[in-house]
């Protein structure tokens, strides 16, 4: 075999490897299933209960925050809006925007990271999700939080992440009331999770002991469930 023949063989071999790559696409989910449990365990271990460092307020990048929507933009009437909190709680709640505004307000200037690869620094303000869950007298039997949205987007979180001090039910973005496209009147935000975990137009919170069949709109399509940052 001379050098030219070998080169041909190499090119042929590598292109068949790429063709093999197409057949390998069918194995993606199996690779994920085999490796995600360990990865998620490590992610949960890495994630402390303390705050992660925040950005200076002047670092926000409003233009960099792209809008992704699963099912259009639902318009919610602020007057009729209620946040339902139920499940494993001692005191189920139905909170209007006034009740949320009466709780302690917090701001978190964080990097909002999308699974697609882009990121934007955003200042989210609102109440701590932990404060709402404590107000509802969260049961020690609770392990997961299911989040329903007005556009039928669905999410589920581990409670440790939900109780993180920087996990907010945000009503404001970059100092102004939350725009409809970004989840008005109430959305979930946290610097410790990828963007698709941060549901917009949140209308219902349910505390459960176990995860059900449905783990999330995108998770059920193949995205990671823990999705920690």
């Amino acid at each position, binding site marked *: 075999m001379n050098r030219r023949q070998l080169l041909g063989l190499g090119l042929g071999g590598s292109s068949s490897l790429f063709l093999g790559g197409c057949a*390998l*696409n069918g194995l993606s989910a199996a*690779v994920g299933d085999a*490796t*995600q449990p360990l990865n998620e365990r490590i992610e949960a271990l890495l994630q402390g209960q303390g705050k992660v460092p925040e950005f200076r307020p002047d670092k926000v990048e409003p233009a960099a925050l792209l809008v992704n929507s699963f099912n259009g933009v639902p318009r919610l009437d602020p007057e009729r809006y209620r946040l339902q909190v139920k499940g494993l709680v001692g005191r189920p709640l139905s909170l209007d925007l006034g009740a949320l505004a009466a709780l302690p307000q917090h701001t978190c200037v964080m990097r909002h990271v999308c699974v*697609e690869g*882009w990121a934007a620094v955003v200042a989210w303000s609102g109440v701590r999700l932990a404060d709402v869950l404590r107000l509802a007298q969260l049961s020690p039997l609770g392990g997961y939080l299911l989040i329903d949205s007005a556009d039928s987007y669905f999410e589920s979180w581990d409670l440790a992440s939900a109780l993180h001090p920087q996990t907010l039910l945000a009503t404001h973005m970059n100092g102004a009331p939350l725009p409809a496209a970004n989840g008005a009147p109430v959305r979930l935000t946290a610097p*410790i999770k990828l963007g698709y975990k941060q549901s917009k137009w949140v209308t219902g919170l349910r505390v459960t002991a176990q995860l059900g069949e449905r783990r999330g709109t995108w998770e059920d399509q193949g*995205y990671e469930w823990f999705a*920690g940052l």
Partner: protein
Amino acid sequence: MAHTSARQPHHPLWTRAFHGFNLVVLLVMAASGLQIYNANPVFGGRGGAVVPELFTLGGWLAGGRDWHFGFMGLYALNLGLWLALLVQRRRRRLGELGDLTALKASASAPRRRLSAHRIVYTLMLIVLAFSLISGLAMYKPAQFWWLTSLFALAEPLGVTSWQMLRVSHLATIPAMVLLVLAHVVLSWRVGGLRLLRAMTL
């Protein structure tokens, strides 16, 4: 023996297995990485040009992430083991300052090629380690914020640390392609087809 030609020399099995394994893991990481790239091109964002499907692995974003994060642990272990074995028993393959001098001044062509090859080999390890570090900084920017903030050095020029991270993590692919090409060419000069077969068969 079916072979009629002169006896074909072989590298030890573990060397060949390791070498082949490296290649497979790198191809998986690069192809699945390019699949992730296509979800939001680093250059141009949503309107940017995407990588042809031929070079991607996973089929769509979640599939690409399955492969990329499924193999990252293997990749890190592999690289760690490789480095440990090199330092332990093959230290002479690593480049050193003398190689730069030899490259410039040595009258012997084989000596210059050996020096070039040691530098290429060492650069490969550095690029691979860098891909691991920049990948970790992007995978866990909240938990490893200190790692991510190292990439803020171009902020005075208007390049955010996130964009810097994305560009530098991506840049490890073309860097490795060039280094692997140099490695193949230099190996060919040393042993040609015989060496290639000794290393793969």
